[in-house]
């Protein structure tokens, strides 16, 4: 993938002004969403999500650990994201930068705030031993909208996950049982370009964005928001954006349930 030229950016911009897009989608259409599960055999749950050319793998692993002092009777959720160098010529090796950190934390908040996971049930011994739910997001191919792809992959990987038994002080990975997920948080990023809103931005469309808001909905509640990039939104624009995202997340949730 070459770097994006100004001419490409301009043509994407001209299209959107006319209510069209470079790949002939409607403004609020997603690219084809493909979700595959069981893609990582050693993970207790995994999912691969493809949005057009964007490809993300999410794996869930369970482990035993000491709880945080302020929540001694709750399991722990950890979400990590890596923008590895294979996914884009512009990604470099090394510790997670600002973009990877934001990605992981927005996905984390969607899951955490929706109370999707039964964290209290993941306590084995109060103050001593609790389950750690470790969600790792791996970006394989970056063509825009990592946020929505990753959130969808994380939700699907958790739904698919089976939790190992814990017996005689050991995690028995060969014996597993179903892992209950109470709610399904799904993220939708609404992107403002001029006076138009578009969904599921490609890499080029992300570059020309005047601002974007990632909105995470459960079945019935708004559980996380993150305005990203430069630019600003009026209150009325924001209220419209929450509604647009709500409709779209209802559709996306059906794909993974």
């Amino acid at each position, binding site marked *: 993938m070459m770097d994006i030229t100004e001419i490409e950016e301009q043509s994407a911009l001209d299209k959107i002004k006319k209510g069209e897009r470079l790949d002939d989608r409607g403004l609020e259409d997603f690219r084809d969403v493909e979700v595959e599960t069981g893609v990582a055999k050693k993970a207790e749950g995994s999912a691969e999500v493809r949005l057009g050319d964007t490809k993300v793998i999410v794996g869930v692993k369970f482990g035993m650990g000491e709880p945080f002092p302020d929540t001694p009777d709750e399991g722990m959720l950890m979400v990590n994201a890596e923008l590895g160098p294979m996914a884009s010529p512009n990604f470099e090796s090394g510790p*997670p*930068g*600002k*973009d990877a*950190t*934001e990605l*992981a*934390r927005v996905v984390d*908040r969607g899951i*955490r*705030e*929706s*109370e999707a996971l039964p964290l209290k049930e993941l306590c084995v011994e109060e103050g001593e031993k609790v389950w750690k739910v470790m969600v790792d997001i791996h970006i394989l191919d970056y063509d825009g909208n990592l946020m929505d792809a990753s959130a969808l992959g994380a939700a699907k990987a958790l739904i698919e996950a089976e939790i190992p038994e814990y017996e005689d002080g050991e995690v028995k990975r060969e014996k597993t049982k179903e892992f209950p997920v109470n709610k399904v948080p799904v993220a939708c990023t609404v992107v403002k370009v001029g006076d138009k809103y578009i969904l599921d931005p490609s890499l080029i469309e992300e570059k020309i964005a005047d*601002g974007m*808001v990632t909105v995470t909905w*459960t079945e*019935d*509640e*708004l*559980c*996380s*928001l*993150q*305005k*990203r*990039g*430069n*630019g*600003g*939104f*009026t*209150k009325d624009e*924001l*209220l419209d954006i*929450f*509604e647009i995202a*709500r409709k779209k997340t209802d559709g996306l949730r059906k794909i993974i349930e």
Partner: protein
Amino acid sequence: MKKDKKLLKNGKRIDGRGIGDLREMEAEAGVLERADGSGYFRMGDTEAIAAVFGPRELHPKHKQKPQRGILQCRYNLAPFSVEDRKRPGPSRRAKEIGKVAEGALSSTVFLEEFPTATIDVYMEVITADAGTRCVALNAGAIALADAGIPMKGIISACAAGKIEDTPVLDLKGEEDQGGQVDLPIAMNADTGEVTLLQMDGMTNIEEMDEMLELAIKGCEKVAKKQREALMKTF
């Protein structure tokens, strides 16, 4: 969500504020000598200092943009700003806040006037009692103006939230811990454009409308305080 203590009684909060009241504010411009611009902001017990350097040459050079400058933010909690000493160095949370702060401030600065340059905004939280990113941004915006950086308007920030099912403005520490929703925003109070928006907690569109309204009114009051501080430097 711990419910051991009532956070609201007859429409009054634990510190006696009404639901739409901000904490007491204090603002000052030009608090540091070496920086090109600096600012101090306090909201209740939360206080932050910010310094601005630049526009100056951006290193490494490959990060330079030929058409415009960039604005970089560092947000940091001082190790002594919280109950248990925080390990020095940037946490994941601090990295993320640095990034959203860049988004919040970049949109108000005329960056096209400074091709290849950077404007660096360093924000240090001295005491944390909730609302640290907002207080840090308020100090940062004062520092940008104090440095003479051309801007479309000043960025002002505050948070709304929900405690005991009631939307309220500007949560303090105990309210934040026992609260259901935290909604920090930053905006250009002159244009009504919200340039930072984060939210976590469970809510719906009607409540969001109410909370946004509270936060927008709050930002307008913050903007007034920031302007007063800047006027005093002349």
